[in-house]
């Protein structure tokens, strides 16, 4: 699986898990908030219920005191006993105390109004009772003809009773309301909490599923990756050995072909010489004959022997010789391809200096100057590296520009595991469209004023490849050229499995 895809895949998985965890956190927060709010509302309701109960008790005891006052008064009127006086006084005091307490407990406007009414009524009654106690006899007499149904005191007591009942009913309603609210709060709490809890579980479960699925996919991907890698290695190995075999086959083929091609060439050239020998015989015979008998001279025959035949034979010879050189080149290449490489540590500067020294005369004749700069050491095959460097420097000397003195630099540098050798000249350069062509066998580029079979760079490239390296050219026409040889710092032999 390519890295990009895997990264994206990981990102998606990570994002999904993060989103799920975020949702879970939000749900947890909601649940806790709901619980806190519900708790607050429940405790508020509980407080309110408690206060309502207190108020109800207070109202009840107020009503009791009311009845006691009423009963005491009635008793006193029937029989003016000081005990009744005490009872009434005690009840009145209780009533007022309770009235005061209730006033503190109440917080509803309506209830407060009612209590105010009760207070007023009680004040009126107190006036009546005080009058009664102040003049018990008169009160007693008045009471004889008194209709209790219209008596002020009785009416006040009844009114207070009614109002107290109203208040009690009100508080009861309040209690019921509070209880209901409390229940509602609880239900709300359970519903919200329950939903949040269920959602939380759902989120956790899906997060776990996502993680598990992600892990499973990852494991699967790893397995397939490993399989692919194994397959790839095998494929590479078999391809490599196939290529090696094919390469060896080509080398063998080139060797045999070039070798066997030389045989007929020997004949062609040999018998061309024989022909020439025969021609010479005829030529001298004719020359002698014509000298003796000028009348026999036939111009056409003479021309054939003297010009046409040597010309034809000359062409045959030069072509055959060229063919022989080409075949020899192929033979040489294939021989090099078959040579076993022997890697050793090479002092590249020394190696290059030696080559430059051996080319000193040629460089001087061409009017060029060669400089060697620092080149890192390489572990490779000496002969192959020498051939490459020599070829590149020779080319630099060979293809100088006639317009300027030659300057050739050989420079080295190293990159990761690779050593580069640059051969830089200020010569005639190579047109970009010929950059590939110059490395092909028997192909050349530019002005053909120098000897050569188009073999050198082909050989250089073949050698560079064999050493596990590359050869590149950077050049413009008439702008000099830079040939860059890149070699592995340490050559590892790769032989075909046969």
């Amino acid at each position: 699986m390519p890295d990009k895809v895997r990264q994206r895949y990981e990102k998606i998985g990570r994002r999904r898990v993060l989103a799920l965890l975020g949702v879970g956190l939000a749900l947890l927060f909601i649940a806790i908030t709901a619980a806190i709010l519900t708790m607050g509302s429940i405790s508020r309701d509980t407080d309110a219920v408690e206060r309502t109960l207190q108020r109800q008790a207070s109202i009840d005891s107020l009503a009791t005191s009311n009845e006691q006052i009423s009963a005491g008064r009635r008793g006193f009127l029937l029989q003016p006993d000081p005990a009744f006086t005490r009872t009434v006084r005690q009840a009145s005091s209780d009533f007022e105390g309770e009235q005061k307490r209730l006033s503190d407990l109440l917080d509803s406007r309506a209830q407060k109004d009612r209590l105010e009414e009760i207070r007023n009524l009680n004040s009126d009654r107190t006036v009546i009772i005080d009058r009664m106690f102040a003049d018990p006899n008169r009160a007693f007499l008045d009471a004889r003809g008194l209709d209790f149904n219209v008596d002020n005191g009785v009416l006040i007591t009844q009114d207070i009773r009614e109002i107290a009942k109203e208040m009690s009913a009100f508080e009861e309603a309040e209690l019921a309301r509070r209880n209901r609210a409390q229940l509602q709060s609880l239900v709300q709490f359970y519903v919200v909490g329950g939903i949040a809890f269920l959602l939380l579980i759902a989120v956790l479960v899906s997060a776990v599923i996502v993680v598990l699925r992600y892990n499973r996919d990852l494991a699967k991907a790893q397995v397939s990756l490993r399989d692919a890698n194994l397959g790839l290695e095998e494929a590479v190995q078999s391809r490599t050995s196939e290529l090696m075999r094919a390469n060896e086959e080509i080398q063998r083929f080139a060797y045999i072909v070039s070798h066997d091609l030389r045989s007929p060439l020997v004949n062609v050239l040999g018998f061309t010489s024989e022909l020439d020998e025969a021609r010479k015989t005829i030529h001298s015979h004719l020359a002698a004959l014509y000298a003796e008998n000028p009348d026999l001279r036939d111009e056409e025959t003479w021309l054939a022997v003297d010009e046409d035949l040597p010309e034809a034979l000359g062409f045959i010879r030069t072509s055959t010789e060229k063919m022989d050189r080409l075949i020899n080149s192929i033979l040489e290449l294939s021989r090099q391809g078959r040579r076993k490489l022997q890697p050793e540590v090479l002092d590249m500067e020394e190696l290059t200096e030696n080559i430059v020294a051996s080319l000193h005369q040629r460089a001087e004749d061409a009017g060029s100057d060669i400089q060697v700069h620092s080149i890192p050491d390489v572990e490779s095959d000496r002969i192959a590296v020498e051939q490459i460097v020599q070829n590149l420097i020779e080319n630099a000397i060979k293809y100088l520009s006639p317009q300027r003195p030659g300057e050739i630099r050989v420079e080295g540098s190293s990159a990761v595991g690779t050593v580069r050798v640059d051969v830089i000249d200020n010569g005639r350069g190579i047109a970009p469209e010929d950059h590939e062509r110059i490395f092909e066998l028997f192909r050349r580029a530019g002005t053909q004023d120098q000897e050569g079979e188009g073999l050198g760079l082909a050989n250089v490239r073949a050698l560079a490849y064999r050493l596990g390296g590359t050869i590149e050219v950077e050049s413009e026409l008439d702008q000099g050229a830079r040939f860059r040889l890149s070699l592995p710092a340490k050559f590892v032999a790769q032989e075909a499995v046969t």
Partner: protein
Amino acid sequence: MNSHQSVGIVMIEDDAGHARLIEKNIRRAGISNDIKHFLDGTSALDYLFNDAGGPSHGGPALVLLDLNLPDMSGTSILEKIKQDEKLHRTPVVVLTTTDDKVEIQRCYDLGCNVYITKPVNYESFADAIRQLGLFLSVIQVPSAEEQ
């Protein structure tokens, strides 16, 4: 030495053209020794080892050997000659198109006396053959029979 015990040249060469060229040049170099030409290794070996007038039964000889033969490798012929008790002193001139150093080395290791690369350049080939002529006149003195 015996005058009619002249060295016979045994030429083992499958290419008729090469054989003709070699013969022409030998003759041109002024060498008149008898030349026996074989086109393949089997008949050449048969002559060398079994023929009544062949080298193993008396006649001093020089072998001109091509390495590329249709039925066997020239080096195996060389090996057989050099391992044979009677024939191992017979000079063998390997004449072939190969100039592979390894191949040349191998021929010398097997006991070849001279190795001549068949050059396509005809002049130098002719020179080489003439040199061979000198060589032949030299080896005419110690007869193979004298041992």
